[in-house]
């Protein structure tokens, strides 16, 4: 039985409370860190080789080392705005072991010489937010957070901030704007948040899972942690798996294990017994892979080599009975809804992709639309301030590429059905409006 780090006996009753967490050795890593110099703590994180668990996979230690030295006001923001479709690992962590996150935040803040920390949690996670809030209050009362932590002279404040439902606030600069009380529009980079972030101060932004791993790295030492996983992707990773599997849920795996072992070994594969048709390896923003790709090792580099990405570590499975068109349409609709509207390629591209997919359903599309759709995706990628547009363009582009025959068949079938009932659902632009009357805006 492999030894887990984050999920070790996570269902222990009362783990969300301070006494049980302390009894299990909680906050010992914080004590250990405070007895070390900031540079030594940072060195442990660099040695561990841990890469960010939020989606981009940037080495965490390097990110901290980018912060300017000196005593200016610096900020740490924990990104708990977990909204990537298919991802629910941070939810389970925060709900069952909120103190692990609090401890990680304080250690990371200490390493970066940061005195103000925030946790930005998505508004929908109300139960989890209450638990984290309670954990912060208890940890503050016990002297682990706040002024003069454990009589070390170090002071770090921690504030929980609740969002209000916007996918784009998971993007780091959108999150910062939202935390400043604005609409969550992403900012132009550079300047990067490490130099100019929250309230224009140097800001370190990390995912919940990354920060929750920090106490374990300090406990076992960075070098020991680096022995887990593969060379380029060290450590363990929480994987959220959902869709057509027998046992959907969160699993902690060592990076580099074959994907099949997660999908079939842990999650039990499609309950229908049908083969896997397509799957997202890292949230809905990752280009889809097919049933032929199940042997790919599950780590950052192998997924990138296969033309997809590990992303947030969320696997969504669709078996042979599912239509690619349905998932593509849901996907485009989601990104069109969540686009903040700041950059034209994303705002227009997501909207028109949704409309083009809609046309397939109503039988108005021709196979040429697939070329048009593919070219729209190409023109979104790399042309916006943030990667929300890319996050739609990559999976939709991969679906058109890998499932073109199926989509063409859908188009033909819908066209045939449409001719049988001519123009009933198809209203040419502007012609029947007066007859139909104005529609209320959605």
């Amino acid at each position: 039985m492999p030894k887990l780090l984050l999920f070790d006996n996570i269902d222990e009753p009362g783990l969300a409370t301070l006494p049980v967490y302390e009894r299990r050795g909680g906050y010992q890593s914080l004590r250990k860190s405070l007895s070390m110099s900031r540079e030594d703590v940072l060195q442990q994180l660099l040695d561990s080789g841990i890469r960010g668990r939020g989606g981009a996979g940037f080495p965490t230690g390097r990110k901290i080392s980018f912060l300017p030295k000196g005593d200016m006001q610096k900020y740490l923001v924990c990104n708990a705005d977990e909204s990537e479709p298919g991802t629910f690992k941070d939810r389970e962590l925060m709900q069952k072991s909120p103190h692990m996150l609090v401890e990680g935040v304080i250690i990371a803040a200490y390493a970066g010489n940061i005195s103000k920390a925030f946790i930005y949690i998505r508004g929908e996670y109300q139960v989890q937010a209450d638990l984290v809030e309670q954990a912060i209050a208890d940890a503050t009362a016990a002297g682990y957070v706040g002024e003069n932590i454990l009589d070390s002279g170090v002071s770090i404040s921690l504030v929980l901030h609740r969002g209000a439902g916007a996918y784009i606030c998971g993007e780091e600069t959108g999150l910062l704007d939202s935390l400043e009380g604005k609409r969550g529009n992403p900012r132009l980079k550079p300047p990067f948040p490490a130099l100019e972030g929250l309230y224009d101060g140097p800001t370190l932004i990390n995912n919940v899972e990354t920060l929750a791993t920090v106490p374990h790295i300090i406990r076992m030492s960075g070098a020991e942690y680096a022995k887990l996983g593969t060379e380029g992707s060290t450590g363990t990773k929480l994987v959220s798996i959902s869709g057509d599997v027998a046992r959907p849920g969160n699993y902690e795996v060592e990076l580099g294990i074959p994907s099949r072992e997660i999908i079939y070994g842990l999650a039990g594969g499609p309950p229908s017994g049908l083969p896997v048709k397509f799957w997202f390896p890292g949230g809905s923003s990752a280009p889809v892979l097919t049933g032929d790709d199940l042997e790919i090792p599950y780590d950052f580099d192998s997924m990138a080599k296969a033309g997809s990405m590990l992303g947030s570590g969320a696997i969504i499975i669709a078996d042979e009975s599912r239509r690619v068109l349905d998932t593509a349409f849901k996907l485009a609709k989601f990104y069109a809804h969540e686009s903040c509207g700041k950059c034209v390629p994303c705002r227009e591209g997501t909207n028109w992709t949704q409309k083009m997919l809609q046309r397939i359903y109503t039988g108005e599309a021709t196979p040429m639309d697939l070329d048009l759709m593919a070219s729209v995706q190409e023109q979104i990628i790399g042309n916006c301030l943030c990667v929300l547009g890319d996050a739609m363009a990559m999976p939709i582009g991969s679906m058109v590429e890998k499932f073109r025959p199926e989509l063409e068949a859908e188009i033909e079938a819908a066209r045939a059905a449409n001719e049988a009932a001519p123009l009933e659902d198809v209203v040419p632009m502007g012609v029947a409006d007066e007859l139909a009357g104005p529609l209320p805006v959605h």
Partner: protein
Amino acid sequence: MSFTNRPMSIPRYRHGSRVPGWDDAVDLTKPPATVPDPATTEVPEELRATVEAAMAKYPDKRSAAIPALHAAQSMHGWCSPEAIDQVAAVMEVTPAYLEAVATFYDMLETEPRPIHDDVYVCTNISCSILGADELFAAMLQAAEGDATIHVSSFECLGACDLAPMASVNGEYIGPLDPSDAPRIVEQLRAGQAVLPDKNLRVRPCQDPNSHPEGHNGDAPSSESH
């Protein structure tokens, strides 16, 4: 301050253009950027205390916009012009600033509603693969005509392991069947906990290695599959 007669939903043609006259109700004589006068804006004490406490938590008071609007919404049912005026008076910002924030976020209501129960049905990829659209239709039907239960389709709520699922006043429940819809509405009306046996809180971690030996993580959850 009164902009209560603005159109709540703008009529549009099928092709998306706004029907002419959509902006008739906008009062162009009104100054756009005026902080409401605290002397003439009545703010409930409870709301004032909540907003001020939120402002004190941040280096910049504007960071309190979302928590303040949340508090106002739970008191008024939605971010009504009155609610926004009250928050603006306490925060000393313009109502336009707060309205810009309120219209950005899905959980802040900008359409008139009474104080209501929220039912968010997730209709994103994992849930829709497993039948979320049928669930949403059933929920809409079950709550039809009841303004105090607001059913809306939501993007991924981060609980794909419960798919198809819904969030009822912040409590996650799932996996749901369309036949659960009438019971959810019934329990909401009766003020009871909604489907407590399907609540996320009772779901164990699915990773078998996360449990100490001799305890199988699958056992307690087997009925949820």
